[in-house]
């Protein structure tokens, strides 16, 4: 088994954030909480699954620090914690930036190609594809 340190693993806290987010129900729960805190019953309401099943998802989110539970012993309202989302988003933005940097290098390559090669005319529909499909 090869080591995987080339992946520049994010801090384990980010791991937990991403793992928690890699589930559509949990993402839907977060969206639902975007407007404010809710009881578990309220959270579960629109979902076609049992409240215990929702509670399991909430536990995962809570362990990842993405939600917290209020102190009110009866209701223990669930609220979204924005900080880990902000950290994860910022971290991932870095990768989007990397993609964009690649494309900027491609921009430069294309500019150079344009200056070397005359702009090709392939206006007609489907005309310029002759050299493919000798396959």
């Amino acid at each position, binding site marked *: 088994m090869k080591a995987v340190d080339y*992946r520049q*693993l994010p801090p384990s806290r980010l791991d937990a954030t991403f793992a928690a987010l890699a589930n559509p129900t949990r993402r839907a729960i977060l969206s639902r909480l*975007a407007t404010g805190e809710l009881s578990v019953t309220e959270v579960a309401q629109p979902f076609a699954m049992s409240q215990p099943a929702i509670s399991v998802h909430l536990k995962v989110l809570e362990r990842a620090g993405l939600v917290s539970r209020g102190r009110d012993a009866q209701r223990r309202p669930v609220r979204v914690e924005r900080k880990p*989302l902000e950290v*994860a988003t910022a971290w*991932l933005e870095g990768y989007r930036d990397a993609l964009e940097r690649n494309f900027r290098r491609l921009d430069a390559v294309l500019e150079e190609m344009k200056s070397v090669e005359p702009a090709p005319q392939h206006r007609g529909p489907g005309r310029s*594809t002759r050299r493919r499909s000798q*396959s």
Partner: protein
Amino acid sequence: MTNVATVTVTTPSDREVEVARMFNAPRSLVFKALTTPDLLLRWMHGPNGWTLTVCEVDLRVGGAFRYVWRKANGREMGTSGVFREIAPPRRLVNTEVFDEDWTGGETVVTTTLTERGAATLLTVMVLYVSKAARDAALETNFVAGMELGYNVLADVLAAVGGEL
């Protein structure tokens, strides 16, 4: 930022991720830059110092490609696949799997070039074998690696729904 083109990332379906960006060049040139090793070697690097060092492209249906990125510390990672459809300058379909398969199986990558006046819209659609595969890819953190982060980025941005 000025009005330069910037990349957008979306998740059209549970199994797909799409990257789109405009280029100020005719699509025949974009197609060439996407499929010619000497040109790819000039731009298709990874984040965090990963440099594309091996680039082999057998551009015919059934032909293979092979890319290897290398870091200053000597570490390498590679990916390869086979071309399924080649229709210059508008469309390219290939399979792809990284040596360390963190995408949960082969992906199918469809590259489309659309003329927008004198410019070209590039879209790259990555299709996973299943939703489970895509989510597994997320869970195992391939994120941080070579698919340049955009798969996960798309998911997370969708998750936070523009609230941030």
